[in-house]
């Protein structure tokens, strides 16, 4: 394992410290907890709390700021945070207008956030939750845990964040978040695995000519392994799987997120994006906004995911609304 760290057991603590001392204009630490909150004064609005295991940076702490999240809770690497931490985050950011929890669909995340929500509700805090599940690699059947939440979660942060900033009520912020979730799908792949610091060895191994398709964001293996293809073929494969969901049609306005998993150079993401845009254009979709870069990573995994979000007027306006966070600034 080759990493620029001090101690595998301290990476989350030291990272959170690095975040707040480096960007005090955006973030402050909830003393004693693995939680970062907005540095500016709380204003009376619905508060957004997200989080999950660490290792997905800039998610989620990087999206704490005006127009997006109010707090992010950081678990151990790839491990959902515990309920007490989430509970503290909820208490810290509630202004009496209620709190929306944005949870990625993993058994662990859902259970821990739900326990925290129960604790906060017992305090009389109004808490609602949405569960992101954009990953089409995983079949959504009544038998399974359902699709995973991956990079599309960031678009939920963005749009629900803008809705909350507009002064909307908790129910409406939740509705906007759910609309994003209903209209977005993602699909990812990797050419190199990652190494959980405390585990010390790669989560899987790939031969020089292999890639994993349908990869998640926790170093877990994907749905299957194939021989390495060209960027165009990869883009085609990811987009085909998304389009097969049949929710995107000619004339639809969409946002695109070409997300790097951590170690993939922007050059490669641009090459993938070129093909993604070409396919979507051919299909008659209108790309009104594309995000390209590392938004939801998996430590130093090399690979990428593509997310598509169908926009109506409300979502489009919220997507384009200003945001000012460490990892996403728009105006």
């Amino acid at each position, binding site marked *: 394992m080759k990493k620029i760290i001090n101690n595998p057991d301290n990476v989350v603590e030291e990272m959170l410290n690095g975040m707040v001392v480096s960007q005090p204009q955006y973030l402050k630490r909830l003393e004693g907890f693995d939680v970062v909150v907005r540095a500016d004064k709380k204003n009376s609005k619905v508060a957004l709390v997200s989080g999950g295991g660490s290792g997905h940076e800039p998610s989620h702490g990087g999206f704490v700021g005006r127009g997006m999240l109010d707090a992010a809770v950081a678990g151990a690497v790839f*491990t959902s*945070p*515990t*309920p007490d931490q989430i509970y503290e985050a909820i208490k810290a950011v509630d202004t009496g207008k209620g709190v929306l929890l944005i949870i990625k669909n993993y058994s662990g995340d859902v*259970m*821990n956030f739900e*326990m925290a929500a129960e604790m906060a509700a017992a305090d009389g805090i109004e808490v609602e939750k949405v569960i992101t599940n954009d990953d089409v*690699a995983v079949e959504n059947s009544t038998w399974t845990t359902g699709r995973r939440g991956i990079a599309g979660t960031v678009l939920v942060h963005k749009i629900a964040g803008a809705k909350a900033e507009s002064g909307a009520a908790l129910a409406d912020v939740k509705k906007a978040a759910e609309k994003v979730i209903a209209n977005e799908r993602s699909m990812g792949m990797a050419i190199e695995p990652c190494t959980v610091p405390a585990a010390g060895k790669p989560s899987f191994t790939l031969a020089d000519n292999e890639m994993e398709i349908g990869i*998640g964001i926790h170093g877990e293996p994907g749905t299957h392994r194939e021989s390495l293809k060209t960027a165009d073929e990869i883009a085609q494969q990811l987009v085909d799987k998304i389009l097969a969901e049949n929710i995107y049609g000619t004339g639809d306005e969409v946002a695109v997120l070409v997300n790097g998993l951590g170690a993939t150079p922007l050059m490669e993401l641009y090459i993938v994006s070129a093909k993604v845009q070409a396919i979507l254009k051919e299909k008659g979709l209108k790309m009104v906004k594309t995000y390209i870069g590392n938004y939801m990573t998996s430590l130093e995994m090399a690979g990428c995911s593509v997310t598509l979000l169908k926009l109506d007027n409300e979502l489009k306006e919220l997507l384009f609304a200003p945001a000012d966070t460490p990892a996403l600034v728009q105006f």
Partner: protein
Amino acid sequence: MTTAKEALRVVGQAVIDKKSYLTDLDQAIGDGDHGINMARGFESVFKKIAVLDDNIDLTTLLKTVGMGLISSVGGAAGPLYGTAFLRASGVCAGKTEIDAVTAKAMLDAAIKGIQDRGKAKKGEKTMLDALIPASEAMDIAIKAGKTEVECLADAVQAAQKGVEYTKTIIATKGRASYLAERSIGHQDPGATSSTVMLEALYNYLE
């Protein structure tokens, strides 16, 4: 003389000792953190129970363990095992001696807690595939009039078989479910850690 605290220490230490084994199992079909999570959890629990009286009652002890696991493990295993210990703690309240019937009631409460939280049932390739068979075996052993330790021995054997069984099925709950067919051939980390705990308890009491 055996104390609840000492028994718990042995059980926790067994899990900590299997840290990399459990992590390896989770790397194969999950995200490679189960051993790390559980070891972090029991180390945190050890600190919490260190301040308790050596002869602390089982109920208080298990409640401390449950709360401790919930606030230190995270992931899926944290809420599940945490809830399991909390529920077991409820069953033994006021009791000084734990007979086989009480032990089974505690195990069943734990299983119920895991199911309330995790919504899983037998055959979904989770810790329940060790724990439910363990409970069933205990039931039979109790009815056959076996001693506590014999009952526990049967439970351990059933849990071990349950772990073997998890190799043969597709996961439909937890992270391993994302792998679908690819999860076949691999044993479930959570079923394994459950069995490790039962084994340790048995070895200690025997």
